[in-house]
């Protein structure tokens, strides 16, 4: 077993080593540090995941103090899945950066990237509310830096928007934490969960829940709070958009479900939120129809998908959670793939305008195939894993007797198909006689992700049974989480 603390300590050492290295003029090494660190995180997160599968939730205290008094890490299956996704995303992004260098100052870029990994890992593993806030801050600040990194006007604008909206989110989150603390007298998540389950009608708890809806809604990109997303995904460097869309949004969702499912055991204004989220998804998918910029298009598409993932977690059923986790995995892999490939296209064409991409699928068949598989997966067509995600979600929806949400999901899939197949149409329609050199780095990274996606498509039921069902069960049974801290 890997001590989960190492998942935090190693990226931190990595991040602190980078200034040392750049002081001795070995700045170039920084990209390898990100690569090694994220590989370490990935491997140890996978090991940890298998360990947790056998032992159940793992609680590790920090500084030797018993949980309610000190800080502890609580490693759950879902948390491990998120860390695996996140470190995979950062690994892939850093692998891509080994070949396509980010602009100067590169060492700062890599620091931010490592700390993004660190923050996300911390959020997913921590068992302490305030600690979660600290890691949320780390994640957000790293994300602000990275989204504003391309300093070409749009970058700064997007970063600034993200900063404004994100700091409102942090503020509300902090307020929520404070209010909870005044009532429960503890910051430990398990202790808070134990408390708020028996004090549901306490207005302070309710008010703090509202604060959390707003604060985490912003981080998790949930509908009425996700305004910053298209700008940021569009303006960020390609490898970073891949991490944002693939992993960071999932970290936000993790925080959201950890707090609302584990701590509050439900969410206030439940019915209203379900429809709000779904309508938001529909609007986002509709907005994607008009995008002329491919990154913006996929940003809106992400918003739509995230709406469905959140909806799955709002279902209050273990199979809904399982479907949500499956969707989350699927969406993370696909979005990483797509943004990495967009990076490859950008290197070749130096544009992200869709109209200028005519015929590149025929010019570069491998890119075309990878992109097409990604799109088919996203569109939820069999035999790819997106189909199974949709299937599990619809099944859970119908078992919960939600007919209208199911129709909304179907309509949204239809809209998705419209803009996704329009992309295939553009990629394969005649145009662009000039031969371009598509970056092999982006194709190689694409291959790794495609293998994962195909793996998920081949054994979806196995993955559901072995992984997502178990994770969903441990999420659904709050007592398992609470029991760890006594």
């Amino acid at each position: 077993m890997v001590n989960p603390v190492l998942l935090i300590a190693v990226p931190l050492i990595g991040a602190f080593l980078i200034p040392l290295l750049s002081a001795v003029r070995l700045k170039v090494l920084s990209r390898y540090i990100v690569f090694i660190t994220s590989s370490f995180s990935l491997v140890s997160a996978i090991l940890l995941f298998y360990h947790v599968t056998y032992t159940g939730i793992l609680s590790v205290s920090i500084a030797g103090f018993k949980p309610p008094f000190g800080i502890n890490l609580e490693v759950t299956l879902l948390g491990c899945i998120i860390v695996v996704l996140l470190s995979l995303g950062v690994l892939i992004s850093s692998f891509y950066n080994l070949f396509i260098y980010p602009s100067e100052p590169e060492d700062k870029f890599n620091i931010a990237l490592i700390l993004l990994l660190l923050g996300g890992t911390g959020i997913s593993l921590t068992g302490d509310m305030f600690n979660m806030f600290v890691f949320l801050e780390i994640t957000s600040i790293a994300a602000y830096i990275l989204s504003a990194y391309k300093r070409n006007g749009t970058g700064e604008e997007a970063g600034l928007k993200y900063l404004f909206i994100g700091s409102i989110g942090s503020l509300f989150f902090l307020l929520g934490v404070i209010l909870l603390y005044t009532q429960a007298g503890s910051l430990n998540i398990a202790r808070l969960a134990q408390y708020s389950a028996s004090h549901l009608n306490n207005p302070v708890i309710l008010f703090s829940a509202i604060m959390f809806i707003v604060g985490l809604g912003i981080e998790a990109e949930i509908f009425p709070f996700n305004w910053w997303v298209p700008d940021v995904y569009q303006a960020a460097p390609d490898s970073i958009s891949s991490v944002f869309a693939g992993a960071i949004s999932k970290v936000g969702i993790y925080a959201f479900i950890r707090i609302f499912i584990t701590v509050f055991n439900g969410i206030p204004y439940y019915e209203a939120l379900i429809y709000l989220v779904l309508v938001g998804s529909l609007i986002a998918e509709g907005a994607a129809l008009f995008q002329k910029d491919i990154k913006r298009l996929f940003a809106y598409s992400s918003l739509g998908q995230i709406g469905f993932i959140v909806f799955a977690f709002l279902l209050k059923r273990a199979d809904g959670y399982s479907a949500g986790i499956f969707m989350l995995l699927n969406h993370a892999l696909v979005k990483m793939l797509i943004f990495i490939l967009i990076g490859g296209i950008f290197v070749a064409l130096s544009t992200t305008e869709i109209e200028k991409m005519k015929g590149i699928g025929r010019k570069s068949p491998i890119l075309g195939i990878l992109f097409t598989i990604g799109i088919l997966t996203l569109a939820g067509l069999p035999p790819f894993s997106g189909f199974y995600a949709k299937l599990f979600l619809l099944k859970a929806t119908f078992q919960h007797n939600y007919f209208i949400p199911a129709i909304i999901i179907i309509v949204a899939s239809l809209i998705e198909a419209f803009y996704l197949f329009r992309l295939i149409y553009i990629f394969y329609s005649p145009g662009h006689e000039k031969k371009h050199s598509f970056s092999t780095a982006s194709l190689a990274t694409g291959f790794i992700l495609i293998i994962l996606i195909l793996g998920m498509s081949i054994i979806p039921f196995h993955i559901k049974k072995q992984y997502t069902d178990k994770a969903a069960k441990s999420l659904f049974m709050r007592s398992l989480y609470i029991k760890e801290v006594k």
Partner: protein
Amino acid sequence: MRHIFALIVVGTLGLGLFYTLSHIPFGKGLSEVSKYYVENAIDKNDPHAGATNIVTDIVVLYRGFDTLGEVTVLFLAATGLSVFFFGLKKKEYTCEPSLIVKRGTGIIFPFILLLGVYIFVHGHLTPGGGFPGGVIIATGVLLIYLCCRDYKAPHSLFKVIEGSMGTLFVIVGLIGLIVGGSFLFNFLGAGKTGELVSAGIIPILYIVIGLKVGAELSGLVKDTMEDV
């Protein structure tokens, strides 16, 4: 109109907050966690908590992990600002600093450094600690910039301190993991409360934090004052 609207919004939010806060019992004894802290840190039941004030114990020991996070936040914020300042041309000053500033800085600078160092070295004994100490050191660097227009700060020195101190913090934590079985464990024990060498890893961590914050903020000052 705009103002009235804003007023209504703020008023409603405030009303909600007020309504909520009115349900919070004020001054009604200590919560479970607070009671534990008071009993262990002040009454010295805990063999590991050795600072003279409870806040230091909480900040560095009980919630040392958060402090590590805060250090990281500061580090990240400084990094972000230096990214922002990267490649920007800085403003040229037209007038020279006065003689008083120049001389005064020369005299006062060592004392500022000393004060900063004193504050973080005595973090476990007196109020203050790593963060304020570091900030005071950075103030000294800022003062030098103000008096000498063509001063070039030892940038790589800042970076070395920043990086090595950060690493040291994590390494101290890892030693705790190896020795005591948990990260940031106070493996040195509490010692005799009130002495300079006491409270286990608290002074070590405060020195680390102080130097790191000082170097970071000095680097930040440098980024704002010089072309990068």
